[in-house]
């Protein structure tokens, strides 16, 4: 299979180019995505290569999402961008009350195979209206699929899968990852099925479930802990709906300790769902499960404040030490 050295952002771009080529029914649109190529450059070249099938829109999220629902009903596969997940809140109706209902209410005679690409999370200096992690909102909505890639390969693969899927899918990217290091990405491979977890690090002392950009901080923490003799298993769940509950249960049964780490604030976050599934399955644990996330607060712009809130590798490591009953090294 061909491999290319790509950043996360470039991998998204490569996937979009592939999809536009192999699926003539795709359309790519949103604010500034076509002629300018996207505010992060992620949709670059699509307009040039595919003309009118990539186009810029007014600042009208209801029109963007609603028209995607309508076009999808009629056989297109729109891939629309909501520039920041925070902005989806001006038009959530079209996702929840419209897209998610099409197939069910029509008894399967109509469908809405649209893909919504967005990105979320805190970045240095970002304000409270440009920092939220909103996956838990979408994960409470039956009828949607949701994924959150953290690597160039997943950025490529998950998007390909999403667009080939026949239901509305949210692909939630992260702008702090777009310009990261280049990695070898297999491009042009077969469309993978939706779902599945990734064991990013095998371990035996504790199962750490995580997703999105937080995966990198968890891996960093796990490396530090490894040096202290704590062997953490890092299980990334890039697909959150469908969610691979089985993989989580299997790992937690083995390590008998569970932590869930996400950037979203803790109360009502999807970490609660993961813990509830493990508790509901009666997995015996050596210690109470731990949820690590942003405290329940708005997001301040100042870095000194934001850093005190968004979990970093240090805090993850500390909490895992406490969970495994070890002291921090002096």
């Amino acid at each position: 299979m061909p491999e290319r050295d790509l950043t996360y952002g470039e991998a998204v771009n490569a996937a979009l180019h592939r999809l536009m080529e192999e699926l003539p029914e795709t359309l790519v649109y949103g604010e500034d995505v076509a002629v300018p190529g996207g505010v992060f450059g992620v949709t670059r070249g699509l307009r040039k290569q595919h003309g009118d099938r990539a186009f810029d829109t007014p600042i009208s999220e209801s029109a963007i999402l609603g028209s995607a629902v309508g076009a999808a009903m009629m056989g297109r596969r729109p891939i629309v961008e909501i520039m920041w997940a925070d902005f989806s809140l001006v038009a959530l109706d079209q996702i929840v009350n419209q897209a998610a209902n099409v197939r069910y209410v029509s008894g399967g005679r109509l469908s809405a195979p649209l893909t919504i690409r967005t990105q979320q999370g805190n970045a240095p200096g970002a304000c409270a209206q440009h920092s939220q992690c909103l996956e838990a909102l979408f994960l409470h909505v039956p009828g949607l699929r949701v994924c959150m890639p953290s690597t160039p390969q997943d950025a490529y693969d998950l998007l390909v899968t999403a667009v080939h899927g026949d239901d509305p899918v949210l692909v939630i990217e992260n702008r702090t990852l777009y310009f990261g290091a280049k990695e070898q990405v297999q491009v042009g491979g077969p469309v993978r099925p939706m779902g599945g977890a990734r064991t990013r690090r095998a371990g035996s002392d504790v199962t750490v479930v995580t997703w999105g950009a937080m995966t990198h901080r968890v891996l960093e923490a796990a490396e530090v802990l490894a040096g202290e003799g704590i062997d953490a298993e890092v299980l990334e769940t890039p697909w959150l709906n469908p969610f691979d509950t089985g993989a989580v249960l299997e790992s937690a049964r083995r390590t008998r300790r569970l932590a869930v780490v996400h950037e979203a604030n803790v109360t009502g976050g999807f970490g609660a769902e993961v813990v509830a599934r493990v508790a509901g399955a009666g997995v015996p644990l050596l210690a109470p499960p731990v949820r690590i996330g942003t405290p329940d607060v708005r997001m301040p712009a100042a870095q000194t404040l934001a850093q005190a809130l968004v979990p970093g590798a240090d805090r993850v490591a500390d909490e895992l030490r406490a969970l495994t009953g070890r002291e921090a090294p002096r």
Partner: protein
Amino acid sequence: MSERRLADLLAMWRIRAFEEKVRDLRAEGPIVGSVHLCVGQEAIPAGACDVLEPRDALFATYRGHGWALARGVPAEPLFAELMGRATGVNGGRGGSAYFTAAEHGFHGENSIVGAGAPIACGAALAGRFDGSGRAAVSVFGDGAMNQGAVHEAMNFAAAFSLPVVFVCENNRYSELTPIADMVRAPRLADRAAAYGMPGHRIDGNDAEAVRFHMRDALEVAREGGGPTLLECMTERLVGHYIGDAEAYRQPGELERIRRREPIARLREGLLADGVPAADVDAVEHRARAEMESAAAAALDAPFADPATAREHLYA
């Protein structure tokens, strides 16, 4: 000429007879929950759908029974849907406010005010790429004109010259509140200018006028001229929903609007033109008979099967 008008009369009577039967079934028990009738507004779907083609896509609201019928959805599965039967047009999943029958170019009711307008834009957009020449029709009420999604849709359609006809059924009320109190400039058709598209206020109680303007708007749309807004002036003869006490009506209002309601008006016109009363009345009888038997058949159908309640959430 009188043939077309008799056809209009039939189209309208089918809707009215359907709605009156629904009202009865709601009172008697087989239909439960919130139901919004379009009694008095029949000329709009009758006139508009007459010039729509199978390839076109229509997006209505919760007050959409008439649109479904005019688009050619048979009455029986609609009755069945209202009564939660397995044979319902949505197998019981939609209910009164959420009919869909894409196979008839009826892309559905919608019970979120204004939400159908952007969706219609998408259907029109799809037509740009699939070679169908499809036009899309978005139907909503006067009150919906104040909803953000409708504004965004009109601008989107105009900016991209999408083949959309926006049909605003101005029945002068948004639920229980007069639209006149909720806008400063009462001619809603004039809002079209804001988007650079044509807007016409037309007689929505005259199927012929609706047909004329609809045909024209469709022609513009299919030629790449972009969207049109048609503000169809009408009145509902009934409450916003079944059970509405209609306390907001002015004294004499119902009598006044009954005088200009589309069916009575067309009937008088036909009689004045010399069409025999028997021919005119036969239309009503035919429509009522159709609806009686459709309702009866629907009543005989089995309820939606609870074992299927979780099916079709995902592909």
